[in-house]
């Protein structure tokens, strides 16, 4: 690409009339399943943020008999094993699930980009050391390790977020490193190196912005897997007892699978729909950010 532009004089004005973000957005809109995913996701975020104000039943309050079936007594989704309103629990649980998912994903993306970019930029002992650390975290059984951290340091939201983020960054690190290894050999990097750019400038301003597309896609998918991770921990009983989350609703009602399956079905459905919507958005971003790499 750089070679071509040095051989042929390209009229850059042709490309300037559209903002690159608009172009990505236009590509994205062509993908119907990705648009559907985005709409569903926005709806879920909207319900989780605004819902508690509109449907103001306290999710912890016992409002009626346990296991009232959906639709009876005016409870749209019924009540749980303590007679608490399931719809209120799901509406309130969304906020916590989404917040933990996003912040844990953010943490893992920050760790992953740091380790991936350093190990891709430098060679020698730094690369060796960071690669070994990455391999170590790949061997570690992630869920068990997070369970240990939460069990030892207490089930509060910050600990849970940390426990998820600290074990989930290896995929981001691998992708970042692969991009850095590719880009650091390109001509424009050599060019800025030759005019005396320092390492930190090369990493942050020259290479990283060009490595971002696949990292953005991976970061989106990370939110989905962090939500699944949080749900798993809560399902096992390792959730903050002061807040409601979708996994915790399922964990609380776990013993009643055979008697009253619906209490377990709806919260699981909420997790499933959210992660599915995020995956669709991730796939859509992948196609619109890398139109050339579109899969067969």
């Amino acid at each position, binding site marked *: 690409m750089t070679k071509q532009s040095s051989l042929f004089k390209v009229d850059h004005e042709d490309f300037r009339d559209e903002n690159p973000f608009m172009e990505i957005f236009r590509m994205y809109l062509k993908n119907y399943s990705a648009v559907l995913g985005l709409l569903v996701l926005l709806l879920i975020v909207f319900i989780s943020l605004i819902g508690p104000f509109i449907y103001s039943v306290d999710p912890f309050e016992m409002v009626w008999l346990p296991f009232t079936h959906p639709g009876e007594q005016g409870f749209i989704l019924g009540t749980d094993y303590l007679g608490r309103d399931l719809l209120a629990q799901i509406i309130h649980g969304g906020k916590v699930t989404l917040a933990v998912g996003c912040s844990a994903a953010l943490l893992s993306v920050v760790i992953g980009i740091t380790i991936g970019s350093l190990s891709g930029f430098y060679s020698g002992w730094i690369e060796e050391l960071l690669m070994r650390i990455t*391999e*170590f975290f*790949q*061997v*570690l*059984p*992630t*869920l*068990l*390790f997070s*369970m*240990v*951290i939460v*069990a*030892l*340091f207490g089930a509060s939201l910050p600990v849970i977020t940390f426990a998820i983020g600290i074990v989930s960054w290896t995929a981001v690190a691998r992708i970042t490193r692969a991009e850095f290894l590719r880009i650091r050999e390109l001509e424009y990097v050599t060019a800025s190196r030759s005019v005396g750019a320092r390492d930190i400038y090369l990493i942050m301003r020259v290479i990283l912005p060009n490595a971002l597309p696949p990292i953005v896609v991976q970061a989106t998918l990370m939110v*989905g897997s962090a939500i*699944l991770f949080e*749900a*798993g921990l809560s*399902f*096992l*009983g*390792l959730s903050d007892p002061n807040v409601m989350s979708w*996994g915790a609703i*399922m964990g609380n009602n*776990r013993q009643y*699978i*055979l008697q009253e*399956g619906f209490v*377990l*079905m709806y919260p*699981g*459905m909420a*997790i*499933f729909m959210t*992660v*599915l919507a*995020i*995956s*669709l958005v991730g*796939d859509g971003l992948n196609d619109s950010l890398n139109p050339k790499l579109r*899969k*067969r």
Partner: protein
Amino acid sequence: MQFISLTLKRVGFGVVLLLIVLILNFFLMHLAPGDIADTIAIDAGGADEEMMDAIRKDYGLDLPIWEQLLKYLAKVAVLDLGYSFYYNISVTDLILERLPATLLLVISAQLLAITVGVVLGVIAARNPQGITSHFVTVLALVGYSAPVFWTGIMLIILFSSILPIFPIGGLMDVSIEREGFAKMLDILHHLVLPSITLASIFVALYSRLARASMLDVLGSDYVRTAKAKGLSEFLVVYKHALRNALLPVVTMAGMVFSGVISGAVLVETVFSWPGLGTLAVQAILARDTPTILGILFFSSFVVVVANLLTDMLYRIIDPRIRTSND
């Protein structure tokens, strides 16, 4: 010869990884609030300062930290992972007792996921625009997005409650004494739902991978040669192409092993499967630290061994990389 030295190098690296897990375990144990003396004091219903000191001295907690670390490592080297106060049994015995059930679940789920995944992937690759191909794409999305414990619960509701074909959980039916073949059949009957559940996360992954690598291989020269020789389509696909298309699947099977163990913890909990996962959850709720850390170490060990085995399997399938380094 080089095969052996490479394998030794891998083993050495695995040992180093496990050593790091142990050191991490040790520091987690020390960073966590409360120690053995506190646990015993709470169990005994209270103890004075003097008695607490005596207990700490008994367990070597008054020694400098590096000395404690060395002692811990020396104990683990002879497979002594400590004593579980909750179960009143040594942690090693406890883990060895539960390990077979977990291995049975994990291995059967992996085999099921790989078989179904590869078959779907190959069918999809032979007709990239066909219905199976779209099915694989949808399956990949659903398999990734559904929480595995929810999948398990839905299967229980469908196949144990509405249609009572399979038991709702456990390793075997304890109400009837069975021996030999009948016992084996009973365990297999109990295994069906848990292994399908655990496999459901990974079928999609393998089928997508098998589809992509099969498409690559089917376009290569040697496949065209095989076709030109007049071999049947079936022989070309399943004898010539499949062997090469399997390579990425084998690599992936090794890479996701720690993920399989994580999934197994959740699946075991849903199906009350008496393996390491349910043990870990019980130990955590009972604050039984030696058992928790013992399981963490042991499952890392299983992952390292699985990685070594896939690495060797890979070299056996593909003679080209048998001797080259990485």
